[in-house]
C-alpha cells in the first residue's frame, strides 16, 4: 500500500485533517505499478477472441462465463442474444474488449474498472453505474440513471437518455449524442457531462461541482445551477472528447451552454473547508 506521507496530495493540503479511528483508505501512487491492476486481474490477449450465446443463460452464469474466459486469456468477448437481460457485464475489474450484440436491461456494465465495452443496441436503467475506469459506448438509446455515480471513464450514448443521467457522479465523462431527460446531473459532484441535444427540466439540480455542456435547449435549470462562459480550453476539450466518443455530429462548440455550480446551497456554505473536500 502506498503511504500518504510526502505524497503530492498531502502537499496540496488534502490530508490536513486529523484522522481518528481506523481507516481502510488506500491512496493511489502512480509510481507503484501494481496500483494499475487489481491483484487478481487476468492477463488477457485482445487478439484472442470468443463468443457467448446468452440466449438461454441467466445473467449470473453469463457473468461467470466472462470471468472464466478472461482467466483463459481471452481479451475480446462477444455476447450474442443478450435479450435485454439485467446486470450483464457487471464487476469486470480487468482490461477487456467486450462487445454486446443486442440490448441490455437494467444495471448493465455496472461497477466496472477498465474494460472497453461496445453495445450495439439499447441499455436499460443505470447503465455503467459506479464505473471506475474504461470506456462504454451505447449505439442506440439508454434508460434513466445513465452513468449514476460513476467515478471515472468515458460513458457514451449515441442516442437519447432518460432522466437523472449522471446522478451523484463523482468523476469521468458522460457524452450523449441525442436528448436527455429531467434532473440530468442531479447532485453531481465532479466530472463532465456533454449533451448534444435538448435537456429536460431541473438540469444540474443541487450540483456540488463538475461541468455540464449542452448543445440544444434547456427546459429549466435546477437549484444552484448557473451558466458559465465557454472558454477556448472547453472547446478544445470538447473537440477531443467527441472524437474519442466517435460522434461525428457537426457541433458549433462555441454556441454550447456551459453549466456549473453556483455553490450557494445552504449546506455547501455551511461546510467547513475540509468537509467540502470530503463532499467532492
Amino acid at each position, binding site marked *: 500500500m502506498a503511504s500518504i506521507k510526502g505524497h503530492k496530495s498531502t502537499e496540496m493540503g488534502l490530508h490536513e485533517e486529523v484522522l481518528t479511528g481506523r481507516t481502510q483508505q488506500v491512496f493511489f501512487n502512480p509510481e507503484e505499478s501494481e496500483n494499475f491492476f487489481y491483484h487478481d486481474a487476468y492477463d488477457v490477449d485482445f487478439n484472442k477472441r470468443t463468443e457467448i450465446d446468452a440466449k438461454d443463460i441467466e445473467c449470473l452464469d453469463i457473468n461467470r462465463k466472462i470471468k472464466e474466459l478472461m482467466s483463459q486469456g481471452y481479451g475480446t468477448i462477444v455476447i450474442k442474444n443478450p*435479450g*435485454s*437481460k*439485467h446486470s450483464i457485464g457487471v464487476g469486470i475489474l480487468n482490461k477487456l474488449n467486450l462487445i454486446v450484440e*443486442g*440490448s441490455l*436491461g*437494467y444495471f448493465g456494465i455496472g461497477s466496472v474498472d477498465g474494460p472497453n465495452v461496445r453495445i*450495439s*443496441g*439499447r441499455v*436499460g*436503467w443505470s447503465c455503467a453505474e459506479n464505473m471506475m475506469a474504461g470506456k462504454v459506448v451505447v449505439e*442506440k*438509446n439508454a*434508460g*434513466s440513471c445513465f452513468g449514476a455515480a460513476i467515478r471515472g471513464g468515458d460513458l457514451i450514448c449515441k*442516442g*437519447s437518455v*432518460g*432522466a*437523472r443521467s449522471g446522478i451523484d457522479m463523482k468523476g469521468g465523462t458522460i457524452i450523449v449524442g441525442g436528448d436527455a*431527460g*429531467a*434532473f440530468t446531473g442531479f447532485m453531481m459532484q465532479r466530472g463532465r457531462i456533454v449533451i448534444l441535444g435538448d435537456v*429536460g*427540466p431541473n438540469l444540474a439540480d443541487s450540483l456540488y461541482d463538475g461541468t455540464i455542456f449542452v448543445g440544444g435547449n434547456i427546459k429549466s435549470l435546477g437549484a444552484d445551477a448557473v451558466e458559465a462562459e465557454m472558454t477556448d480550453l472547453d472547446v478544445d476539450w470538447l473537440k477531443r472528447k467527441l472524437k474519442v466518443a466517435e460522434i461525428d455530429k457537426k457541433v458549433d462548440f462555441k454556441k454550447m451552454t456551459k453549466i456549473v455550480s453556483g455553490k450557494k446551497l445552504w449546506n455547501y456554505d455551511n461546510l467547513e473547508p475540509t468537509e467540502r473536500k470530503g463532499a467532492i
Partner: protein
Amino acid sequence: MCGIAGIIHRGNSNNVGGEMQKMLQSLKHRGPDSTGYALYGEGESNNYILRYKVGENVKEGTTAVKEDPSVYAARRKEVDKKINEVGATIHDDEKITDYSFRYVISYDGDLLDLAKKIESVEETEIQSLGKSLELIKDIGDASVVADQYSLNQFSGTHGIGHTRMATESGVDIRSAHPYWAYPFSDVSVVHNGQLTNYWNNRRALEAKGMRFLSSCDSELIAVYLADKIREGMDLEEAMKGSLEHLDGVFTYLVATKDKLGMAKDTMAAKPMVLYESDDLVALASEEVAIRSVMPTEIDTYDPYEGEVKVWQA
C-alpha cells in the same frame, strides 16, 4: 415494485391473450403476488360482456377469508335475479372458477344502475362490464392466471396487464390490477408507483358519488379518469389533467375500446420502455417483456417525464 405492460395492434387482431401472458410472465420478478389482464376482443356487437366475482381466491399468503363454496352458487342466483330486475337479458353464462363468472347480456338502460344492482349482492364485485373489454385478475403469476381463465388464445386488438407486489394493501383479487373505470364500459387502468394524495382525491371523488372498491391507491387513477370522462373530457385530456392532480411517482397505462394510452409523472421516477412501429405498439416496465414477444433487434426508448401518449387500435 409492480410491473405493467401493454400491446396494441393497429388495424388488426392478434392473439393478445398469449402475448400479454408472455410479457407479464417475464415481469414476474417485479410482482409475484397477483396478475391481471384487461383484454380487448372482437366483442359481442351490441351485447355487454360482464365479468364478476362473488368471492375471493384464498391461498397461502392471501388476506381473504375462506368461505364455504356453497355460498357462491347462492350469490350467483341472486346476481341473475338482479340482472333480470333491471330489464337486462342474459344470453350466455359461464362459470370460470367457483367464484368467478363471465356473462353475455343485452341491456339498454343506465350502466350505473345495472352495476349498482349487481354489486348490491353480498361480496359481489364487477371486474368489467363492456362491449369488448374482458378484465381478469387473480392470485398467482401470469401463467397460472392465464391457464386458470384460458387466456392463451384470446384474440383481440389490444390489452394491458399488471404483475403486483402487494405493498400498501392485501394480497387478494380486490387489490389486484387492472381496475375498471366504473361505471364506464371498456375503460381499464394499470399502474406502477405510489400516489401520495390518495385520500384527498378519494374523499373528493366519493363526495361526487364515485365508488371505490379497494383501498389500493391505483384504483384512484381509474376512478379519477372515469370522473373526468363523465364530465365530458376525452381520454388524452383527462390523462394530462391527472399529471397535475395526482401527486406521487407513477407510470400508468389506460385502455379503452379502441385506444391505449400511457402517462408518466413529472419526476420520471417509474420506468417505461416503448416500442412503436406502423403495425403495433408494445410497452412495459422492462424491455425484457417486449423482447418476450419480439425477439429480433428493435429500437426502443424511454418516454420522458410528464409525457402522455395515446394510440389508436
